[in-house]
């Protein structure tokens, strides 16, 4: 059953007599989704005090609400909420995986595509690792083969080559730790210390022979794998399937092509997340590979699939329609929450706003899988802008930064990583290649004056 949900926008008309006085109103009918599905979403259910009480008053859940993963790890470290801790660790695993991808894109673009004769030859190592992270195995092996076996990256290059010759996917924690340095025993509730010391100083082939401080992107992969292991150790054994589906959203490399099933998902995985209900977790995991087919398959059980479905016209995701769908779901949820809670409450809008962002992200995932790169980009940037209202999701922000770096745009990634560096010091490892990308693009750019 589809509902038609009517939203009246009080658009002040041209010709009104005094400020704030609407003289006419335009009425717009937005398509919204089945109320039965909407009622299963976490914002709708959290409108009920008894359901919400589990998440109130706890520092860990406050940190999750504020998208502060580092604070969530600390708060959940006492072991009071295993799923909360697992979720926070998984968030950091996603964050550092996206940071590794950001570093990989910036490295390949700056030192590979824009490489200079003056670059140290052993930069081939980080370029090779960059290709490996991007899933470009042959290019990775080619670059790694050019690394001086006796140089500072010789042993690391050998280990990467061995790993890539075994399988083309990103190596496991043990292998990564052997390459970039052990982060210590995986201990849920902790975060390994980060050293800003470079992995090597490579000398530029110029008269000045300046030293370049180089940080191995493998460090970020290792950190990601460490937190993924911590998430796995923290989560109840029954949640292993859920954890795999949750991890799929920000997976790097070749996504899992398998069909997913709807799993029972505890609210600890959903509260304040971009998955609004249990079926959304499976839908997003599947949509990242199957795109529109996944929308069709999941539209009667996933609210995100149902919201995105009308935005698909003639086999294409239409960004403006997705934006409308997001707004409509927000409004529909706000109305439902007011019904459930016996009136409008302050938390309703912030919760409902997250559903709006969730729809944009779902549309983006589907558009990406549907080879609509630019349309997915429009939704990506709109989602980032909407987070102005809900608080910046650091994992998504890093994914945008990685995407930008892949597009050879260093400016937004610089801003985003600068914004996040205090909370996540290990992001410092992304700085050097991003700077290089910026400087190299700037040197080739058209002239520009400072403007007032």
């Amino acid at each position, binding site marked *: 059953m589809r509902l038609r949900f009517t939203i009246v*926008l009080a*658009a*002040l*008309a*041209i*010709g*009104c007599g*005094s*400020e*704030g006085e609407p003289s006419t109103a*335009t009425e*717009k009918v937005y398509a919204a989704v089945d109320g039965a599905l909407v009622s299963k979403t976490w914002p709708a259910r959290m409108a009920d005090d008894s359901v919400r009480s589990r998440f109130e008053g706890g520092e860990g859940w406050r940190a999750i609400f504020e998208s502060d993963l580092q604070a969530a790890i600390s708060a959940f470290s006492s072991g009071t909420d295993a799923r909360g801790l697992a979720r926070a660790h998984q968030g950091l695993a996603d964050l550092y995986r996206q940071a590794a991808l950001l570093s990989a894109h910036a490295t390949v673009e700056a030192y590979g595509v824009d490489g*200079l004769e*003056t*670059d140290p030859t052993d930069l081939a190592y980080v370029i090779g690792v960059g290709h490996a992270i991007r899933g470009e195995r042959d290019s990775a092996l080619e670059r790694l083969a050019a690394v001086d076996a006796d140089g500072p990256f010789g042993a690391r290059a050998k280990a990467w080559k061995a790993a890539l010759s075994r399988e083309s996917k990103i190596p496991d924690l043990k292998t990564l730790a052997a390459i970039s340095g052990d982060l210590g025993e995986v201990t849920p509730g902790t975060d390994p210390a980060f050293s800003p010391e470079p992995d090597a100083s490579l000398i*530029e082939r*110029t*008269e*000045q022979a*300046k030293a370049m401080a180089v940080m191995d992107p493998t460090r970020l992969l290792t950190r990601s794998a460490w937190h993924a292991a911590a998430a796995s150790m923290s989560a109840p054994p029954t949640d292993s399937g859920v954890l795999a589906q949750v991890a799929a959203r920000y997976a790097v490399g070749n996504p899992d092509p398998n069909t997913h099933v709807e799993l029972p998902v505890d609210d600890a995985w959903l509260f304040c997340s971009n998955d609004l209900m249990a079926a959304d977790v499976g839908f997003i995991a599947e949509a990242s590979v199957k795109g529109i087919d996944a929308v069709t398959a999941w539209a009667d059980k996933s609210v995100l699939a149902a919201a995105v479905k009308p935005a698909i016209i003639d086999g294409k995701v239409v*960004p403006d329609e997705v*934006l409308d769908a997001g*707004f409509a779901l927000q*409004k529909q949820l706000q109305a439902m929450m007011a019904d459930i809670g016996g009136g409008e409450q302050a938390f309703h809008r912030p919760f409902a706003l997250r559903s709006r962002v969730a729809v944009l992200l779902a549309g983006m995932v589907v558009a990406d899988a549907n080879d609509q*790169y*630019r349309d997915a*980009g*429009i939704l990506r*940037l709109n989602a*980032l*802008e*909407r987070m*102005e*209202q809900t608080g*910046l999701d650091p994992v998504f922000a890093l994914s945008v930064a990685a995407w930008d770096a892949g*597009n*050879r*745009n*260093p*400016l*937004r990634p*610089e*801003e985003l*990583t*600068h914004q996040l560096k205090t909370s996540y010091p290990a992001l410092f490892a992304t700085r050097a290649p991003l*700077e290089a990308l*910026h*400087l190299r*693009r*700037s*040197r*080739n*750019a*058209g*002239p*520009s*004056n*400072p*403007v*007032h």
Partner: protein
Amino acid sequence: MSLKHAIRAATGLALAFVGTGATLAYFEESIPMSLNPLYAKTMADHRAQELVFDRLWFNDAITNELRSRVVQKYQVAEAGRAVEITVKSGIRWHNGQALSAKDVCFTVDAMLDPGTPSTVAAHYREFITGCEEKGPQVALVRFNRVLPKPRERLGFPILPASEFNSTAISPDLQFSARPIGTGPFNGKRGLRMVTFDAFANTHHMPKIVQMQLQEGGDPLVQTKTLINNNVQGIVVVPPPQRPDLSASDDVSMKAYDLRSWWYVSVNSNKGALSDKRVRQALNLVLNRNELRQYSIGVKPGDKNSPCEFISGPFIPASPYYNVEVPVQPNANLSRAEGLLKQAGLEKLGGRWHKDGQAITLRVGMLANLNHEAPDLLSQVANQLGAAGFDRLTSKISADEWDDSVMAGQSDFDLVIGKWSFGLVEEVNELFHSKGRQNMFRFASSEVDQLLAEYEDAVTDTEQRDAYHKLHKVLNDQLPYLFLWKLDTKSAWRTEVRGNIVAPYYYFTEIDAWSVEG
């Protein structure tokens, strides 16, 4: 004027021009000074010109892909020292004439003509040597060296040869107010607003019939006018207004990628200010935390602040920013006093004197910045006053800023301003002794040396290191008192669809914009 009257006045102005659903009115920082791209001096100029002209190449606002709307094909020629450009057929100028290779070469020739006093063109003279028409649609642009990625450098807007009698183009031609371009809109600048009428073309099909640029006044009035749907957008929303607009479902806040930093420029050639110690003392007199709190509305410790202190001429996220140079968030009056005394100043009756004369500082601020940082001028003046300096304050009109301050002919001791940058963050023109934008003719051989080091750098490491050193030296010599970077946000009504905001140029993707209803 009361707020209510101000809103009515703004509403009336907006209503006078809104006729169809496809009209879009918006508030700009200021009325553009010139619609001639050779004379863009403000960001409002750049944004407005983006509506009227096509740049030869530009970057896609979403994917960053290098694209062109006017070039059909190109090829690198003469072993990398030239590029042969074939412009598309069928593109019309707003005067009805066809775009041809002649226009491309005319634009190049105009930029190379010493009779064109354009700082924009001056940069192109550094690497373009000429242009030759090889056919009706084919132009060959030559360089003085091999350029690795020539298209990325050729982002200049194309001018119509038919509209000029000579390649020497002066800023005061009628063209600056009523330009002719090949862009999506035909612009006309008036005293209080600029109108842009859609011009359908083979390469542009704008969905908006008319755009109306109005000068934004009081930010509160702008906000109310937007919420009441009497304009559809505000290009620059000051931080204090952002929460109200974010809370509205009828408005979307839009990120605008622009690198802007604020400063107080010091006239280092005037009186006591020529002594570095006095400039350093003034730097210590400023309590930036208070300035930021009272003018921008950001308190110390605010999370995700849009406004961050700086200690040099770059934003903190920039590769050029030297993190080892500390910022000066609070005043240190005792240290300031020590420096002033070392410089030979005396404090008599609570006022600082030099050679028996009380020091009076003439402080100015570009007037339209008062919308983004209300009362900043008086806050700075108050802090100087509290530290023992007499002062005279005045807001500087855009014309006076351009004609007097930037021409190095003003009598100010201190001026408050803001510089904005895109991908290229070069500051050589601001600080080199012969820099074209060195407003008080600050001269330092050490700074000139570092700027030369930057220019001569072979690698990006060398280039970055040169600017890191420059940052440190400028923080010591203080031709500017560096204040903060402030990010820029826009707000648009949700009825405005497809409104992708391009970094720096803003309206690059205007063809996709529409107004619903």
